[in-house]
């Protein structure tokens, strides 16, 4: 029986790392879709640091050398930094798979897992995040009691005690970051207005494990996954909707890869997917016009990782008055915001610089605002806009939906 991903090691990718053909598509925008030289690169880390090691190909070669014992950790003092200066955006992987059938992102994640196992990783800044998850069940050092404070004024079922058709798995960032508080509030109110039988776990919602999965702390991730799965099963959860691209990927695709996990019993949707369904079913009707020219930023963990490209565009196109203009790098070839893979935690400057590049690309469309639906993207791009003193507005898609209904 094939191993699940979270029990695989670099050794399982030996064929791949020896077989990397060095074609460099892990660094470049897929050829058919290149629209200009300026926006032809796709790997944020290579884009910033310019040495091959920071690209997907670089990780493949480093992994090969480590597997063969060509060097040790003491020979390569910057190794951990190289491994963690990757947003896990998956751009390398999608291009590599289309050409070479290899998986540089999975190799990078296994490399990180090895570094954690050997005590070399994660980065010091990640340790606070891990401790917070262990102590508070969220990465933000916030007491559990605050997890549902966003919902004080909204009447929602408690899914831990009541039967609900749909569980709203808010996600730690949207639930605890005060600047993002409107995201869960809008989401819940929209759902209720559309007649969805919605409930939350409230203070009992625990971290999905996405941050620790991406930085290679598999032990903590597997523990969180099992606790969540146990809770979902215990409460008979059949349908989950989440605001977070990271949670979505983990709940949908990573939990089935946890050793010992059998078939996942629930269906999971990201908010934008769910909104798209509601609009198509006629349960969400827009009555107000929003006269804005907007561009859509595809969050990596939602788009490239999970294939959700059209739904948010459908939602935006359904809102009267909104004109959607596209950036050059979109969908599977979208430029990452820079916030993922633990980068924002450990390398804030690189994260924000990457977001600035995305904002520059958005500005070229002539849009008045940039819309997305991932709390990490929003945090990171918000910082970038502030540093740039840029007037471009940043919207979560639920804000626009809320205004239009």
């Amino acid at each position: 029986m094939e191993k699940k991903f979270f029990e695989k090691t670099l050794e399982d990718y030996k064929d791949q790392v020896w077989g990397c053909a060095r074609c460099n598509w892990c660094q470049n925008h897929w050829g058919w879709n290149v629209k200009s030289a300026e926006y032809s690169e796709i790997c944020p880390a290579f884009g910033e640091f310019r040495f091959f090691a920071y690209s997907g190909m670089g990780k493949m070669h480093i992994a090969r050398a480590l597997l063969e014992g060509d060097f040790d950790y003491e020979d390569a003092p910057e190794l951990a930094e190289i491994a963690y200066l990757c947003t896990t955006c998956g751009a390398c992987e999608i291009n590599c798979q289309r050409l070479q059938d290899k998986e540089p992102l999975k190799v990078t994640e296994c490399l990180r897992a090895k570094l954690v196992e050997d005590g070399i990783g994660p980065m010091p800044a990640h340790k606070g995040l891990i401790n917070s998850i262990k102590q508070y069940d969220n990465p933000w050092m916030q007491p559990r009691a605050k997890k549902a404070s966003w919902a004080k004024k909204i009447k929602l079922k408690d899914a831990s005690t009541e039967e609900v058709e749909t569980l709203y798995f808010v996600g730690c960032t949207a639930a605890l970051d005060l600047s993002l508080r409107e995201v869960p509030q809008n989401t819940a109110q929209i759902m209720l207005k559309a007649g969805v039988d919605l409930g939350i776990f409230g203070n009992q919602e625990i971290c999905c494990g996405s941050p620790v999965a991406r930085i290679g702390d598999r032990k903590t991730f597997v523990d969180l996954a099992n606790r969540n799965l146990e809770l979902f099963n215990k409460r008979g959860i059949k349908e989950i909707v989440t605001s977070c691209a990271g949670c979505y990927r983990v709940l949908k695709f990573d939990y089935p890869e946890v050793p010992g996990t059998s078939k996942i019993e629930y269906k999971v949707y990201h908010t934008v997917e769910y909104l798209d369904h509601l609009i198509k079913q006629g349960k969400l009707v827009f009555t107000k016009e929003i006269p804005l020219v907007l561009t859509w930023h595809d969050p990596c963990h939602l788009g490239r990782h999970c294939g959700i490209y059209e739904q948010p565009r459908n939602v935006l196109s359904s809102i009267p008055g909104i004109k959607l203009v596209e950036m050059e790098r979109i969908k599977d070839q979208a430029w990452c915001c820079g916030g993922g893979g633990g980068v924002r935690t450990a390398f804030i400057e690189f994260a924000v610089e990457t977001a600035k590049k995305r904002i520059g690309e958005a500005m070229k469309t002539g849009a008045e605002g940039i819309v997305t639906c991932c709390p990490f993207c929003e945090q990171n791009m918000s910082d970038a806009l502030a540093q740039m003193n840029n007037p471009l507005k940043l919207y979560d898609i639920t804000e626009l939906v809320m205004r239009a209904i």
Partner: protein
Amino acid sequence: MEAKKKVEPQYLPPEVYLSLEDIVGKEYITQERAILETYSKFSIDITGYLKKHAKDPSNIPACVVLPSTTEEVQAIVRLANKHKIPFVPFTNGQLGIANYPTKPVPTIFIHFSRMNKILEINTKTMAAKIQPYVDYGQLQADAMKVGLWNGGTPLSTSLCKISSQTALAGLYQTSMKYGTLGKNIISLKMVLPDGEILKTGSSSVDSVDDFWEYAPGPDIYGLFRGCAGTLGIITELTTKLHPWAGEKELPEPPAGRPSIRTYREDKYDHAPPPKLHRLYWVEYNDIDSEIKALREVAHSGIGIGLNAAGIYNTYYCSTTQEQTIKRTKENFFPPYNFYVICTGITSHKQLDYADKVINKIIKETGGTLLSKDHKPEVLKVLATWNLDCIRHVCGYRMSRYSYLDTWFLSGVPAVGKDAQEIWSEAINTIGETYITDRGGVDTTPFLYASDPCGRNFFTEADVYPNPIDPKSLQQAQQLMMFSIGKTIGKKIGPGITAFGASFEPLTSFFPEMGPNVHLFMRKLRKVFDPNGVCSPGRQIFTKEELQAVPPPVIEAINQLRQMNGLDPIDVSKSQ
């Protein structure tokens, strides 16, 4: 558990490293072992793989520097000369022999990843001035916006930086109309191996524009075409552009975009051809008819790309290794087939004329056009890669072992038959390394028309050994060397030399390739590179370097030569 043997590079003297830091800044130089590793490897070069297995440190550079200007490159080169330290200029890519140091001494790796700008696209002179890290995809994207393109594109475009292609003669599959890249270069700015800066072309004359490849005196550019970095480093070049009839942006597959989880669904690969482009796939019953048709199409003057693909398609168009094997075994693709890419250039009438000509040739030569009525399922699959030549996507979906080593022949199409025989003999003597070894030349020659009117074609045969298995790699190496020896014995190649590039050790160990390489290049190296520091051991060994080759290697080569009916070489008598 027994500790594995480490591979330890030789580092630069600290004072040299510090001087390099002063030139490019601390941020853009490194001797971090993990980073050096990513500049140490190989791709299509079997020797490089074998060195990895042998834990040979000689292909790991001492440091990597990222210059941003010609002046910084000049300063690096001057420093290297001062300390007599070898340096290797590099953009990116696969061609093993140019990828890593070949001498077991500390070597500076000059990587051009920061010199990645298109400096100018001039619509009046129809030319683009670019830095060395610009690739075909980038240039095509910007040029299309103003109704131009570079006129030809290799299949692996992000891999191929235009400067590197210039240094290697510039072969690609869509060069029938405008010729290879080497014929399209207007000017170069070079840093010579001793640090002097040299310009070629009309703009080398003060106050003259950059519009023509010639300047007073001999054709200096001709020296650098195909020099593979041996005679200097290209830091800027101007290349011709040609009319582009398609849209400002390339069409997307109607099915949309894949995710990491759906990339194998072939619907994402089926984009329509750009406006005023047309593509034909033609099947033949036998190789003679196919070659006759190839010649006729080439002579007709229509089409920009003409390529006999054979069952190479099995892996160009398959999405997994398993699918490649299955299709090969089932003969899914016709063994004798070729494609023609036509670009209308300016009008539908022109395209219609091309259509008539191609159909007439197909009829006269007994071919069958793949269409909705004839093998539509094959035509659909083939569409995944043939248009890549004009869409600047990497055409090879090599869903299998790494792509190792290639050999080339050139000449009239009949060379394809010779190649077929030689390759078959090589595989039958030594044995195939992977099922598709037989795909390219044994069943049908893989031929590219590389010149208007079909004056020459080139062909290649690739091998796919398992890179983890040294025995498989050695077998592949024998296959390649056997075939090369045989080819030279038959006086028909290897043709890449005919395009202006050749590499060690072939150059020295097969002197039949021509005295020009040995005599002229060795003399040039003495003049251009008095300290012997620029890309040593790549394109040409000096007499001293040749004589330093270990005797067992010479012995093995001589055995190979004798197997192919060639006299042994005596390096002690080398000029």
